[in-house]
């Protein structure tokens, strides 16, 4: 399967109503790349099928493509519904990233603590508080996965949940950055300093991954609240 974004950008499809329509949707929507590409590909396929059905010879022409796009509904009408689904997909993605990263980091830190017998480790209280922030974010993330997954058949998904998980992810990412910095600075004082440096590096990588996902979630939540597109098609 060709990625829709690539196809739309590379091909000279000026004047093709289906390609134009898909390009407008692709530009307007934000969300996990794979989910968005699948959604756009499906819409492209649906429009192509509709155009073929409207064409007397089965080969879609410009008129048939225009009719298929008209019947599809305006981008203004569709973008909010599609963005809502993409925002929820991004929310689940961010929640999963937070939950997995925190679980992995806590395991990593516990192993470090077992390996490094120094109980007088400086800034232990600070790291403990930061780990508490991360644990709270991870609990919220786990609840989000339940609420937006199987429980969504029985309970409505709160409208502000994407924004909440985006900021929880951001807080978690900031806490990870602070822990990484603390571990790096105090590595010299640790009994097993290579282990402390390794811990700092893993925490820093987690900070980048969670931070990027939280940023994407914030953007989706912002788009989810926006008014309809200015230009209607």
């Amino acid at each position, binding site marked *: *399967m060709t990625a829709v974004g690539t196809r739309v950008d590379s091909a000279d499809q000026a004047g093709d109503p289906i390609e134009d329509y898909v390009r407008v949707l692709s530009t307007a929507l934000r969300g996990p790349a794979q989910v968005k590409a*699948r*959604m756009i*590909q*499906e*819409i492209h*396929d*649906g429009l192509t*099928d*509709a155009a073929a*059905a409207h064409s007397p010879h089965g080969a879609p022409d410009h008129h048939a493509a225009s009719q298929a796009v008209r*019947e*599809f*509904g305006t981008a203004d*009408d*569709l973008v909010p*519904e*599609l963005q*809502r*689904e993409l925002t*929820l*997909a991004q929310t689940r993605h961010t929640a999963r990233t937070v939950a997995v990263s925190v679980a992995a980091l806590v395991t990593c830190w516990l192993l470090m603590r077992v390996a490094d017998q120094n109980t007088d480790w400086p800034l232990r209280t600070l790291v403990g508080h930061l780990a508490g922030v991360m644990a709270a974010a991870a609990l919220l993330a786990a609840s989000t996965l339940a609420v*937006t*997954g*199987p429980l*969504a*058949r029985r309970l409505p998904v709160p409208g502000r949940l994407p924004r909440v998980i985006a900021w929880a992810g951001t807080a978690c990412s900031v806490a990870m950055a602070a822990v990484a910095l603390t571990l790096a600075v105090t590595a010299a004082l640790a009994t097993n300093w290579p282990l402390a440096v390794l811990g700092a590096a893993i925490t820093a990588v987690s900070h980048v991954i969670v931070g990027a996902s939280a940023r994407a979630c914030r953007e989706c939540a912002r788009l989810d609240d926006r008014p309809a597109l200015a230009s209607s098609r």
Partner: protein
Amino acid sequence: MLLSVLEAGPLHGYAIITAVQDRSGGALELRTGTIYPALNRLERLGLLRSSWQSVGERRRRCYELTEVGRRNLDTERSAWQAFTHAIGSVLAPATQPRPVS
């Protein structure tokens, strides 16, 4: 509606749209684009599952009912039939009008 047209077997997006229109005898004029976010939502809720399948010469995203979706369809269908039966009973012309006193 979407669940019911998938009861017979997997269909791709455009086939679902035409199935809904055919079943309604053309009475339901859907904005076809609304089907796609709806399918996405039903899949997220676990009522449908989807996979890429070869249909003719192309690969399409095809949807099919899950077991939960099938149970949900039965429940919704029963509730709708009970509702339409109740409304039908109210709207049906009375055979013997009650005399005005």
